């Protein structure tokens, strides 16, 4: 090679950098593994080899400082390897610091092509002090000697692992292998046959032959071109209807090849999630040490593959989440012992494919999220009223931690405050079309579940029409399509005061009209016109989107929106359809948010930052019903699981308790008028009972009411505290005094004893 040719030198340095970065990433993981199991000779050999390679190459390029730092590190490693020293936490920390220093030096070399001016004397001192311990009289061997010693340790490793050759084995040079006796020499020869003269690269030549490095830019360009091809294909397919058979056959072939090409190109961009997870053992180890905690990390599904753009996008959110888990989830060892847990906390990360999406779960067995404190904090911050807080379900309360600037951490550490940045995590994940949910059992565990799409570039979409224009709904959010014929509309869609719901198999599904969301000049819908309802999933909730027409499904190429349209919020992008027209892609969470479908999003909108009127701030959906002769009562819709009408004959008795069978469960019935007004149970004026099935404390209860009036979306002001048991207070709704039912108190009052069916979530 021509050392005087600067271009060639640059290329060599670049190669050295790429390889070293890869090795260093692996090193982090190996060192953490070694700390757990210091006798792991394979890891030790690999760590040693990496440092040794960097040292050798640094000498070649004349990077003396890098050489000096790696030399002391190598010496320390050789002492460890030879069993003269034992790997302590202190040494592991020093070695990790060495990795960081090397990385830092390499990044300086990368940007300037010159060496860092920093001497890293502290680190060198620390490393030499550590290696001098116990055996101060042994001088560090000169570098030459080390070079030949390097592969020695690999030999025993080969013996152990000869059955399945591992990447570490090729480091054995044949010269050394032959120097070893009998069997071990044979086994190392067989597994190390290829890499003659490659010992220092740490790379198998087999791998090199089957793999080539491709710049990310090339892959991105390929993906764009395939996107164009898919569009052109869609256009061509539109002509096939009328043309001759030969043309039809050709376009069919084009269709198949395009689909296959698309898939293959997509595959080239896939990376295992392990490529970002590999950093986490190190992060957790450092953090745990810093916090004085013991944490064990389990990772499942490292090989789960994702598009590289998505990998990039989830890196920071995931790092943030695991830092949170260590800092706030896992308790200190004494606390854990006191709580009867193992002193060593456990964080489990799991990734798996499911239904065209990737699920990532991060669970810890730490202290969980204190729901009451979260609510308290939200009330203090004015995000929530005390009343809303009391009524809020556990799951809704967990979602409070995603609000901006929300933290319940009692002391802020320099690591993280639980909740600080959780809003960023949520935003980042939602930006790539994913969703994040949190479950927690106080004192026991916290689970964070993330769902993200496999790729962002080409997705299947459902084409719908609204106001004469076509829109695309990504199929990942699509649950089902429902067409309501005009005679069903009046019966099953209840549409009062702007809050519309539809009873879908007994579930109350909020209904949103796309034309209203998009503020299109909507034609007047007659009350009993047939409806096309697209049932969509946003996060963990579902809602029905009413569109004018449901057209077709199509593979669409997602194109980013121009900067001028970024603020709109309900569009995820745009695409070009087969006919050459541009269609907008709906952002389902954005639509849900705009429609204020869910109480959690409603809460978000009243955060102090948002400028909204106080009146709408407290608006909530209430179910209005009759109770007794005059009684007009309301209860929050979010507590209602289903509305049912059952024949009186279906009421059964279980001891003194009236019950009904409901979806294979026994659900206790509470006759509200009897309970609250001491009236006799309504005499059989109607053959059917109106039952409001509520979920209370994870159990179902059926509240028998006399009539169901309405569902209203209204700002309510509680006039006074309840004058009697079972009532929270009274409010004025639609100009009439209405009592707010306190479900919890009512259930308590009813003294239900019978075995109680667990609610199906």
């Amino acid at each position, binding site marked *: 090679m021509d050392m005087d040719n600067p271009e060639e030198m640059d290329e060599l340095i670049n190669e050295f950098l790429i390889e070293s970065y890869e090795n260093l990433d692996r090193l982090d993981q190996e060192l953490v593994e070694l700390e757990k199991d210091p006798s792991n000779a394979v890891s030790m050999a690999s760590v040693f080899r990496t440092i040794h390679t960097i040292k050798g190459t640094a000498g070649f390029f004349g990077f003396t400082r890098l050489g000096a730092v790696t030399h002391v590190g190598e010496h320390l490693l050789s002492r460890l390897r030879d069993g003269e020293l034992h790997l302590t936490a202190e040494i592991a920390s020093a070695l990790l610091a060495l990795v960081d220093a090397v990385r830092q030096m390499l990044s300086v070399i990368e940007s300037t092509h010159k060496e860092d001016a920093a001497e890293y004397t502290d680190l060198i001192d620390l490393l030499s002090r550590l290696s001098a311990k116990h055996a101060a009289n042994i001088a560090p061997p000169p570098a030459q000697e080390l070079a030949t010693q390097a592969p020695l340790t690999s030999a025993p490793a080969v013996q152990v692992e000869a059955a399945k050759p591992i990447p570490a084995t090729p480091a054995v040079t044949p010269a050394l292998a032959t120097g070893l006796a009998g069997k071990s020499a044979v086994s190392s020869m067989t597994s190390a046959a290829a890499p003659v003269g490659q010992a220092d690269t740490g790379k198998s030549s087999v791998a090199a032959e089957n793999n080539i490095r491709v710049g990310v830019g090339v892959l991105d360009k390929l993906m764009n071109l395939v996107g164009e091809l898919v569009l052109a294909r869609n256009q061509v397919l539109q002509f096939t209807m009328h043309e001759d058979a030969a043309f039809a056959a050709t376009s069919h072939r084009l269709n198949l090849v395009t689909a296959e090409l698309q898939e293959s190109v997509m595959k080239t961009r896939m990376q295992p999630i392990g490529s970002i997870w590999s950093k986490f053992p190190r992060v957790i180890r450092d953090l745990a040490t810093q916090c004085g905690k013991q944490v064990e990390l389990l990772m499942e599904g490292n090989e789960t593959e994702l598009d590289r753009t998505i990998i990039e996008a989830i890196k920071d959110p995931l790092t943030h989440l695991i830092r949170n888990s260590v800092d706030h989830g896992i308790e200190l060892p004494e606390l854990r012992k006191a709580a009867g847990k193992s002193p060593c906390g456990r964080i489990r990360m799991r990734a798996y494919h499911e239904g065209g999406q990737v699920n990532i779960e991060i669970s810890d067995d730490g202290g969980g999220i204190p729901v009451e404190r979260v609510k308290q904090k939200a009330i203090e911050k004015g995000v929530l009223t005390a009343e809303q807080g009391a009524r809020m379900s556990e799951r809704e309360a967990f979602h409070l931690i995603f609000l901006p600037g929300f933290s319940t951490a009692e002391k802020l550490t320099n690591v993280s405050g639980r909740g600080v940045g959780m809003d960023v995590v949520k935003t980042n994940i939602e930006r790539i079309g994913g969703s994040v949910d949190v479950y927690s059992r106080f004192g026991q565990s916290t689970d964070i579940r993330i769902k993200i799409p496999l790729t962002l570039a080409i997705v299947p979409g459902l084409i719908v029409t609204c106001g004469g224009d076509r829109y695309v709904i990504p199929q990942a959010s699509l649950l089902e399509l429902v067409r309501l014929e005009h005679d069903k509309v009046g019966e099953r869609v209840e549409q009062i005061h702007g809050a519309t719901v539809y009873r879908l198999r007994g579930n109350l599904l909020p209904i949103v009209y796309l034309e209203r969301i998009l503020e299109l000049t909507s034609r007047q819908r007659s009350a009993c016109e047939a409806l096309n309802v697209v049932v969509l999933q946003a996060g963990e909730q579902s809602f029905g989107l009413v569109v004018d027409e449901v057209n077709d499904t199509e593979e669409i190429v997602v194109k980013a929106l*121009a900067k001028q349209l970024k603020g709109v919020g309900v569009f995820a992008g745009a695409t*070009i359809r087969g006919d050459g027209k*541009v269609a907008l892609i709906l952002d389902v969470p954005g639509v849900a948010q705009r429609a204020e479908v869910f109480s959690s999003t409603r809460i978000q909108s009243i955060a102090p930052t948002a400028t909204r009127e106080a009146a709408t701030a407290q608006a909530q959906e209430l179910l209005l019903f009759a109770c007794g002769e005059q009684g007009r009562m309301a209860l929050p819709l979010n507590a209602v699981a289903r509305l049912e009408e059952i024949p009186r004959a279906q009421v059964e008795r279980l001891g003194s308790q009236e019950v009904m069978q409901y979806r294979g469960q026994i659900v206790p019935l509470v006759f509200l008028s009897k309970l609250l007004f001491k009236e006799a149970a309504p005499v059989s004026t109607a053959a059917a009972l109106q039952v409001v099935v509520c979920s209370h404390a994870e159990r179902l209860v059926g509240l028998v009411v006399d009539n169901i009036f309405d569902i209203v979306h209204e700002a309510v002001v509680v006039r006074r505290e309840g004058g009697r048991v079972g009532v929270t207070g009274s409010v004025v709704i639609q100009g009439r005094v209405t009592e707010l039912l306190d479900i919890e108190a009512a259930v308590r009052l009813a003294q239900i004893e019978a075995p109680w069916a667990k609610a199906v979530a």
Partner: protein
Amino acid sequence: MTQTRQYCTFRLDRYLFGVEVEQVQEVLRYMDMTCVPLASQAVKGLINLRGQIVPALDLRRMFQLEARAEDQRPMNVVLLTADGVVSLLVDEIGEVMEVQEADFEPKPETLRGVARDLVAGVFKLPGQLLLVLDTARAVDVNAVAEIGSGTQLKGVAK
């Protein structure tokens, strides 16, 4: 001998506007577009420019001029900006003019409102004025929307 510069000109209502030739990717006749609900007033729609999705900004709306007659179809002046390709919808495409730098004057102090923000300066041509569009400001619709109402283009009209 003064420097000359080339401007791509177009008409909007009674006014003659110009954009430096280097910034213009192409000029096109009317193209079908897809409207974007909820977007800023200035965004008339999205057009498919050979597979690229390009926002079309209506200059009439931006200058708060009367809307075009129904039968009058706007033409596209497609700009290549730092934020990607953007099309400006104008009434009529003019010729490419060569103008003397000596004839340039900064925008008059009397210019107010939207026009003050969107006009970079004026070339005094024989018999008419050529208004130089500040393209960087024009394509930043969110900033334009913030500027108060009340067009003051009259100040420079002849």
